[in-house]
């Protein structure tokens, strides 16, 4: 069983060696010409804003998206073993999954209804 992971590990080592090696090479090979403007944050030529995120930070919207993603991710994780074993679960499996999806759908419908899926 574990021997199935060995090739993946080998590829991981090759990819990591390539990536890290190239990054090190790149920092060694390239020229180094100091210039203050170069080291500033790039904001299309105007003076960079002192704080990356600005005074208002971020729309809290992203939090909602991530939370919804977790909800659906967990639902999908349950769907996979169900789909694989569906042949032996039969009608019972279908009914319980319909119940599960319907319940999660309630949450989805609530969020949609309250405008949680709108971006502006």
């Amino acid at each position, binding site marked *: 069983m574990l021997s199935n992971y060995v090739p993946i590990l080998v590829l991981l080592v090759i990819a990591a060696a390539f990536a890290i090696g190239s990054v090190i090479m790149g920092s060694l090979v390239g020229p180094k010409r100091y210039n203050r403007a170069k080291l500033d944050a790039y904001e299309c030529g105007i003076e960079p804003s002192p704080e990356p995120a600005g005074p208002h930070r971020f729309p809290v919207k992203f939090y909602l998206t991530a939370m*919804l993603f977790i909800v659906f*991710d*967990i*639902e999908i994780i349950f769907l996979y073993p*169900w789909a694989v074993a569906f042949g032996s679960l039969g009608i019972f499996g279908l009914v319980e999954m319909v119940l599960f999806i319907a319940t999660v759908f309630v*949450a989805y419908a609530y*969020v949609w209804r309250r405008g949680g899926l709108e971006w502006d």
Partner: protein
Amino acid sequence: MNAAILVQAAGEFTRTSGGEAATFWVLAPVAVLAALGMVLARSAVHGALLLVVNLFCLAVFYLLQDAPFLGFVQIIVYTGAIMVLFLFVLMLVGVDSADSLVETLRGQRMAAIVLGAGFAGLLVFPIGGVISGTKAAGLAAANNGGNIQAIARLLFTDYVFAFEIVSALLIIAAVGAMILAHRERAGGKITQKEMLRRRFAAGGPVTPVPGPGVYARPQAADVTPALPPASDDPGHPGDSGDSAGGDADSPHPVGAGKGAAR
């Protein structure tokens, strides 16, 4: 007590191959160090990253113990979804390396250490008590017919009630997130047409004001651009819209026509 179980387990399965042991001994210190680093890191994002490392090591441990489904679900759900949520939240509240390290709640560090130790004890002793009395069924029985099939068989027959409860938990998560993060908008969504109307009706400069260091004060196409006069201050022409009074600060020549009309 535990050593006896380990010996028994090793005797029963003789599956703790060299590779498995080696992986464990390499990754276990990494996991512990990452966990410690997570608590001690000064920057919140570094802490979150170390937590990702820790969760990843746990996933590899699951793989080592012939639970591939659990291992990859650990990566997908914990490192892929939950930690992304953490990072989002860290960015939402703002991440400065200058985050304040002053305790706002007095004595919370002591309380955290005590509670953490208590929780660890709570975890270790009941689990130790449980596994010392029972006999392991063995991986062959547990993974009969394939890892995923075995999980599905258990989850969708014996534990179907718990499985349905999970959906209720998910509802609570979604509703809680809505309550925390969603702000109801009064009225409908403003269309772009409407926004344009409002912008024009409000008066003042219609286009964005120029950035600092730009000399073109009026931004209309009907005004010929002019060089800054030598006498005028060349410093901040960007505030042409809201500078009150003064001939020198009223750059719109078209204003003359309007003034004469009134």
